[in-house]
């Protein structure tokens, strides 16, 4: 399948990736090439095949409801790009 620039822009917006014009064109080309290769899969009929979600034979993995405080807060805040302990700080979301 061919990926056009508009699709690239839509996907980049979903992934929150800022792309230059040059990058958009290149990605449209590269992704189209990869998806052409991937299209080979359609040769195989999988109507009766269950998707493989987990390769593991294990299920029902749980832990006890035992609370414990990690004590990492101050360490993490100290290394955060911006914080105002005890909070992390971010710029506002500017709505229109």
């Amino acid at each position, binding site marked *: 399948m061919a990926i056009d620039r508009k699709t690239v822009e*839509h996907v980049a*917006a*979903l992934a*929150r990736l800022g792309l230059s014009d040059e990058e958009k064109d290149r990605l449209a080309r590269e992704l189209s090439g990869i998806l052409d290769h991937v299209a080979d899969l359609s040769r195989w009929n999988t109507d009766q095949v269950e998707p493989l*979600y*987990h390769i*593991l034979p*294990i*299920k*029902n*993995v*749980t*832990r*006890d*409801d*035992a*609370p*414990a*405080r*990690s004590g*990492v*807060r101050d360490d*993490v*805040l100290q290394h955060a790009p911006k914080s*105002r302990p*005890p*909070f*992390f*700080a*971010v*710029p*506002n*979301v*500017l*709505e*229109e």
Partner: protein
Amino acid sequence: MSAYEPVVGLEVHVQLKTASKLFCACPLEFGQEPNLNTCPVCLGLPGVLPVLNGRAVELAMRAALALNCRISEFFKFDRKNYFYPDLPKAYQISQYDLPLALDGFLEIQTNGHSRRIGIERVHMEEDAGKLVHAEPGHGVPPGTSFVDYNRVGAPLIEIVSRPEIAGPAEAHAYLDALKQIVRYIGVSDCDMEKGSLRCDANVSLRPAGSGKLGVKAELKNLNSFKFVEKALEVEIDRQAGVLESGGRVVQETRGYDAAKNITYSQRSKEEAHDYRYFPEPDLPGFAVSMQDIERARAALPELPAVRRARFEASYGLPAYDAAVLTAESATADYFEAVVRTGADAKKASNFIMTELLRDLKSAGLAADRSPVRPEHLADLLQIVASGEISGKISKDVFPIMFQTGKPPKEVIREHGLSLISDASSLAAPIAEVLKENPKAIEDFKSGKQAAIGFLVGQVMKKTRGQADPGLVAQELRKKIGQA
């Protein structure tokens, strides 16, 4: 408005009453210092992994069963991907195509009749954190928000109703019934102020009698049941206005401004939502056996509707009493503990509904924390029945019991409240009353039987209610006859 009928669906998030978060061991405490209850897992630091809280699964399953859902034989978790600073991993672990439970219903009461509202699904997911908008000054650059992740990862169930709710009042009734059940079974506190119950509403209009659904708006941030009702009312009016003027309703998210009593569009410049759900690779799936379901069902307490019916049938209580007593499981338990000691059911019901619930309410307590133990209340009712004190005095005794936690006999003794049942000690007050009320004596003599009641009242006043009214009436008649 009459040309259209509203269709409402509710999405209710309930926080499960666990001690730790859904996927990590951080404690869940309301009102804790910001970010104290965080760890690498809920902060989404690189490389760490979620591990499912088994108690949360138990509670979620219990809620699903109480809502008459079918528990899935196999369920799994999925990632819901979106960017927001209150979501540290930029995905929420939720359930998409194979949720915990499907196809239930909730029985609701409106205008005295009962109706079933379908429940589409119940699924588990983790909560997000909280953005705190900073007040300017204190060296905070303008345009900064603060983030508190204490709540991130709290275990939630989302209960999605079918679009079968007929309007604002029914929505309110649905929420009341839902909250009652969920609290009853000990799954959540359902405290909207603490955020342990949250509600979004989908609402659309369709021509009356039509089977097709119209375009819906999603109302968010409705932080009380009253606001849900009001927001739905104004949104229904708004949509009716749009349709009647020939316009079209747009599918969108809307907020509710309680001060202005309006709904407003919350469209942002963000890309249209595409959550790109996919199976959470870090969590193996969950297989539920019949035995698991039976065990969870067996652990389920009697639900409010069943209990209400039983209270009517086996205690002979009026429907109203049964409803009030079974509204909270603690109250119903209390009532049954009182009756178990042999107290008369109706008398116990009256006393609990008027005296106990009033005092509990003002003390902010549930019945299981009542300072008056059920056996003490039963004793009190027994003392009234034996004639040792009057019903009126019992209402003075009770508040003291409530304050002190003491048994009724002790309170009565300490406060000298036992009934004056000795005719000789009534002689003086009766003589006084007769002297002060010659008119009433005349009236009685001329055949007005009601006058005796007035005189009894006067004597009771003088004895501060401690006299046995029957004995007073008998003595009064005797004295008037002699005169």
